[in-house]
């Protein structure tokens, strides 16, 4: 059972406001170690440099989108095991199929509440404590 306060989570979104809102939701769940990245390229930098327990990434980003990031993570020797939750818009049904094929652990539709995020994380990591 993962301990929320010990989890290291990377939040990836090109919009600062959205990153901060996600951060607030995570903090409500008790997560204390939150890294941020603005796009897939930055996220890969972070993911290859430190151990992470979870990546929550938006899909819609310049440079490298969420799917590109997911593929890069899954292909990376040290990062490939990191659970990955893709954040999608509500029109992105087909995207979720692609994400599943590329190895996403879960997805969450924007906008989401802290409770929805908890459910989505727990489906991947087990019950948070």
């Amino acid at each position, binding site marked *: 059972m*993962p301990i929320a306060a010990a989890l290291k989570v990377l939040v990836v979104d*090109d*919009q*600062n*406001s*959205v990153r*901060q*809102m996600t951060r*607030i939701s995570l903090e409500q769940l008790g997560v204390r170690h939150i890294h941020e990245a*603005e796009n897939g*390229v*930055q996220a890969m*930098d972070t993911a*290859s*440099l*430190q*151990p992470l*327990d*979870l990546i929550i990434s*938006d899909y*819609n*980003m*310049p440079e490298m989108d969420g799917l590109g990031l997911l593929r890069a993570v*899954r*292909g*990376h*020797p*040290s*990062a*490939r*095991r990191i*659970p990955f939750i893709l954040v999608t*818009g*509500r*029109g992105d*049904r087909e995207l*979720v*199929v692609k994400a*599943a*094929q590329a*190895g*996403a*652990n*879960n*997805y*969450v*539709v*924007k*906008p*989401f509440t802290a409770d*929805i995020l908890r459910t*989505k994380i727990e*489906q*991947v*990591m*087990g019950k948070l404590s």
Partner: protein
Amino acid sequence: MTSLDQLKNTFFDECSEALQQIEHGLTDMREGHGSGDTINAVFRSVHSVKGGAGIFGFDSLVGFAHVFETVLDAMRANKLPATPDIVDVLLPANDVLTDLIAMSRAGEAIAPGYGSESRAALERLLGKTGDEADDGPAPADFEGLDFMPIMAGGFDDPPAPAGYRIVFRPKPDMLKRANEPLYLIRELRKLGTLDLAAETEGLPPLAQLDPDRAYIGWTGTLQTDAKREAIEEIFDFVSGDCEIEIAPLQAEPAADPFAGLPEAAPAAEATEAVAPPPLVQHSAPSIVPATAPAEAAAKPPAAKQAATTMRVEVEKIDRVVNMVGELVIAQAMLGQIVHNLPEETSGRLAQILDEVVHHTRELKDSVMSMRAQSIGAVFQRMPRLVRELAAKTGKKVRLEMQGENTEVDRSIIERLGDPLTHIIRNSIDHGIETPQTRTAAGKGEEGTVKLIAEHRGGRIVVEVRDDGGGIDPDRVLKKAREKGLVSPDAALSEDEIVNLIFMPGFSTAESISDISGRGVGMDVVRRNIQDVGGRISVKSERGRGMTLQLALPLTLAVMDGMVIRAHAETYVLPMSAIVECLRPSRADIHNLVGGRGLLKLRGNLVPLVHLSDLLDLGTVNADSDERVVIITDAGDGTRFGIIVDELLGHQQVVVKSMEESYGTVPGVAGATILGNGRVALILDVEKLSDLAVSQTSPFARLGNAEPAGAN
């Protein structure tokens, strides 16, 4: 401000950027040079607006953005072509989006039907594609979508992927038989994802190393769908020269979503992999423990792209700018002290101080470049304006923009929007003719307004050019006389007449139109531009169009100044206005009646004024030979010489505004603190030139019409 409010602000700032992107992209598409990337970028921007709006609960914004986005998505998927008709629906949609964002930001209630016309137009487009813009509340999950969340592998190991565990150890004399292990490895790699670790334990010290002997073995995995035979085939030729083991990783290919993914490295190792991944990476620690990094041919490190930009709050940069300003002042004071020291002690100090001056200047330039923004931020608002005005006036106008990437200090960008808007309003309202008139005059139906920005001589020059009817000098003069702005008998050149449009209270519009006649005249525009230390000038050709030129300083905070003395007073003149300084021989100065003079300079006559006269400092000792003449350019190309008593030196000065405390004082642009701690006024050369001519020209009355301190 709560943190949520701050976040909303961040979101709205992001929206402004997104709107710019959208406008830019749509303009490109309208003009026919939008690519798939353009549509993508526009889509992404609208999508970002929608996403953020959803999070912050701006439902009207989400609803509209959603329909907008759906149309763009259809275009992205080539279901809708990017034809001008369609872009013409998107452009007003962006205007509605802009309004909705503005209203959401201001916290105004949004009328339920706001933008319904544009929305209906977007929906009509979608009708053509069969896509429905569903506008219900966002679901937490996609219904009917069979997505099984995958429990993370960190807690239970995922099944092994399809492939083989391979051990390959060349015998010592394999190389001597002309067999190259790396070729074999390369062949293996063609079969799938190869992950090998080198066994380097057998490697002797360098001195004992025999280059013809094979020392290194490899173990690892090949993740592939290929048959075992395919692998054996590769090693066929060398089977006698090496030790080879091939074992399947699993009996059956996994029916797992991770299938097709390389085997995961255990978590313990994740922390070790700090370096870019080498090719030969052990990932099967059950076989060989990690002892040494792979020494065999390492894959070129994955290109590691560092972030190239970061966002910094403006206040933080402003603080640095302020500190640089203070540093410049402190340094000037230090310079003064060093200057007063005896030479034996000051020599080395002065040298170091020179370096400090140099560094400070660089520091200033760097921080100023951080504050610089491309002028595109202002330009981007103009296409919409032109569209709306053209629609309202029934004229056909196309807007061309050049130099949108020209960088200008933020503070100037902020204050450029209104004047530019007003000038463009004027151009379309008064300048560009109706299609009928244009055709009759032998011009194309469509008028052009050009917006051009460029760096020119330490300034930013922004021009608004139109190919309309230009200014009619007769009408302007008539109007000016009617309003008593010029005396009936004054003889004015055409240029002077055209410049009357900047007079307070002047407006040529026959009727106050909805567009430009808002009680704001060109005089206000001029004042706005002058307030940021800029100059405005106009050129007009009757029947062919007119050009309004704005020359703006690059920055408002620190500038290069010439410190001068007139009588007992010290002033600063902006270096950008100074053409040259000279000490003329008395023979070159021709005194005229009324204390004025002319200077003969390389065959030309330049009017001269005494600064002491101009500022009423006291009697001028007309006979002094010690005077210096500073030739200045008031910005419109007219030169005049200012006589001062002494040049005290050239230095960077920090501009402190006095307007808040004293109002606008003609001839004074601001104040600064000098090295000796004293305050000196920074003179405004253009206004000085106005002051100089005010006593003799027909503008006399006007020059004085604006009392000091009037705002």
